[in-house]
């Protein structure tokens, strides 16, 4: 199993990262950014599917709540009605999980590749030898110069850890209103996630090489960009409005407000047109 993992996922990603670093002027930071973008592009169809399902699920929330009220005393009838609703809406309630399960190994492999090529531990560098292809470009590029913007990417960095927390928070906040609808329980859970996840990642970033932090930051930014084009500012809309107000930016009319924002009462929120 370990061998299959190495041959199919880990070795290609590791070698690609090394080649990218060499091509991008021996700059490890740029290589991490480029690889994160490329992998996100490859996984884009899955990500869009995931977003689509999440959005549709959010749109169903008022109807689901109505059903919960209607069948408060009959769980079986409630389950049947919910299933019927999902079926009619053409979504699978577990649809957002499959893309996540497919993407997860890639993220883990990317993490492992970053850890290996940075030679954080002597053992990981020794084992890198068995991971690399016998290409001249690979041997010429190793070991990678792990300095980026004056920071050593192979050691933890406080600023990067803070940036990880900030980007994660913004990303989580952005997705909040798009999926919670008016379900107070779900909103409460999401509010907790908004704080817990970034806090956990800050903690990790402070103990792990900042090359990994760079990957998390870039990944969060890419996710936010994709989210913006799909559902707008989402939970960040009130902040965007405030900032726009402060900066006296003339508001432009937008044809459609993101569904979730509208539902949570953020009237006048801005965002690009959602695709149907």
């Amino acid at each position: 199993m370990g061998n299959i993992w190495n041959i199919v996922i880990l070795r290609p990603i590791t070698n690609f990262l090394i080649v990218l670093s060499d091509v991008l002027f021996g700059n490890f930071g740029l290589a991490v950014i480029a690889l994160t973008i490329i992998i996100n592009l490859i996984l884009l169809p899955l990500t869009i599917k995931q977003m689509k399902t999440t959005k549709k699920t959010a749109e169903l929330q008022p109807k689901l709540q109505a059903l919960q009220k209607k069948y408060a005393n009959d769980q079986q009838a409630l389950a049947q009605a919910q299933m019927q609703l999902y079926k009619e809406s053409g979504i699978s309630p577990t649809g957002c999980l499959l893309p996540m399960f497919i993407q997860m190994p890639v993220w883990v492999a990317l993490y492992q590749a970053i850890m290996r090529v940075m030679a954080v531990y002597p053992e990981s560098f020794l084992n890198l030898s068995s991971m690399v292809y016998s290409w001249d470009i690979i041997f010429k590029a190793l070991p990678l110069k792990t300095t980026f913007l004056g920071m050593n990417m192979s050691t933890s960095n406080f600023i990067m850890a803070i940036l990880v927390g900030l980007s994660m928070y913004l990303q989580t906040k952005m997705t909040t209103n798009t999926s919670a609808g008016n379900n107070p329980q779900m909103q409460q859970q999401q509010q907790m996630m908004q704080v817990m996840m970034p806090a956990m990642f800050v903690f990790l970033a402070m103990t792990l090489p900042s090359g990994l932090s760079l990957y998390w930051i870039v990944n969060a930014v890419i996710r936010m960009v994709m989210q913006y084009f799909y559902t707008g500012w989402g939970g960040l809309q009130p902040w965007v409005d405030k900032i726009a107000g402060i900066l006296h930016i003339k508001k432009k009319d937008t044809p459609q407000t993101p569904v979730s924002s509208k539902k949570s009462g953020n009237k006048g929120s801005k965002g690009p047109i959602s695709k149907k």
Partner: protein
Amino acid sequence: MNLPMKKIRKIQIAAASLLLVVVLMIGAGCSCNAQVTQAGWAPVAVGEDSVYLATAEGTLVTLSKINGNKTAEDIKVNTGNTAAGILSCGMAGRGTVVYGTPYINGDLISVAGYDGMVYTYSITTHLSNSVQLDEDKGMSIIGGIVGDGDILYIPCSDGCVYALNSLSLTREWSFETGDKVWATPVLDNGTLYVASFDSKVYALDASDGTMKWSYATNGPIMASPVVKDGVVYVCSFDRTIHALNASDGSLKWNFTGSSEAVPRKWFWATPIIVSDYLCAPNMDGTMFVLKVETGELAYSFEYDAQLSSSPVAVGDIVYYATEAGVLWSLDLTTGATVQLHDFEQTIDSGLVVDGDVIFVHTQTKEALYAVNRANGLVSWYYEV
């Protein structure tokens, strides 16, 4: 897919929990990748009656050369600031990991730790002293210590090699290279040869650290240089063996391969010179045996595991181990190889020979084996 809402919730909770576990595993550096847990690979230091083993637990163990019994209390090599908590990957409470061979000078044994500290201990009283090698950066030390009397020469990941007085632990001089120095320096006739990850080998005046010459290869250098009869042999990550004139660093010959065998991976382990041959293990699993005078390939032996452990020799016989744990002997007069022992354990640590005994420090299940070099039988072993 008609799943009741409760089931969906359960799946979602399970997925979220799985994600959390993966994130925590990633954080701990343990995910699908036990290799990142530091094991250390320090070859033993051989004293008069004892051998000194720096274990992965960060303990310096003193064992009798004859039977492997402990002859002194263990010494914990650390400063008490070892990582703790869930992210320590089982490192909590351990001493600092040691990669280089400790250096013995009379009653004093010096150990360089991964924490960037140099520790000295009295063998008889265990009185200790320590110093942070690089006060500003606190970078790790991977290479071993080489000494000349009271002076210690220590390579550091900050790119410098330091000369320290082992009694006062004060710095005599330091020399900065362009990248990490993981290879143990070599002292020969007042010249210190330092190999760096910046692809260069430097010849320094050991008394004051001034550079005599430097030579650039096309890849980082992990293996220590070998010096013999006025020639410096350097094995580099550029998959080339370079023979340099020790006087000025000019190239005598280099070996990039022949029609019979080509190095396909890094040269990691330190090569050895036996009679008129240079034996250089490559990570592709090939032992290259070259004629030192011309750099021609005399023999090559291929194995199905990488060779990362540095060989030793007695007379015309070379002893080396594959990473898969097999100990081999090679008689250079006949070119015959014999499998001496299969430890079935990872061996990354360099071998050490003392008389008829070869000391093998295994990594997967950490232990020190004393092997009779004539027949490959284990005389004794100490399991950490």
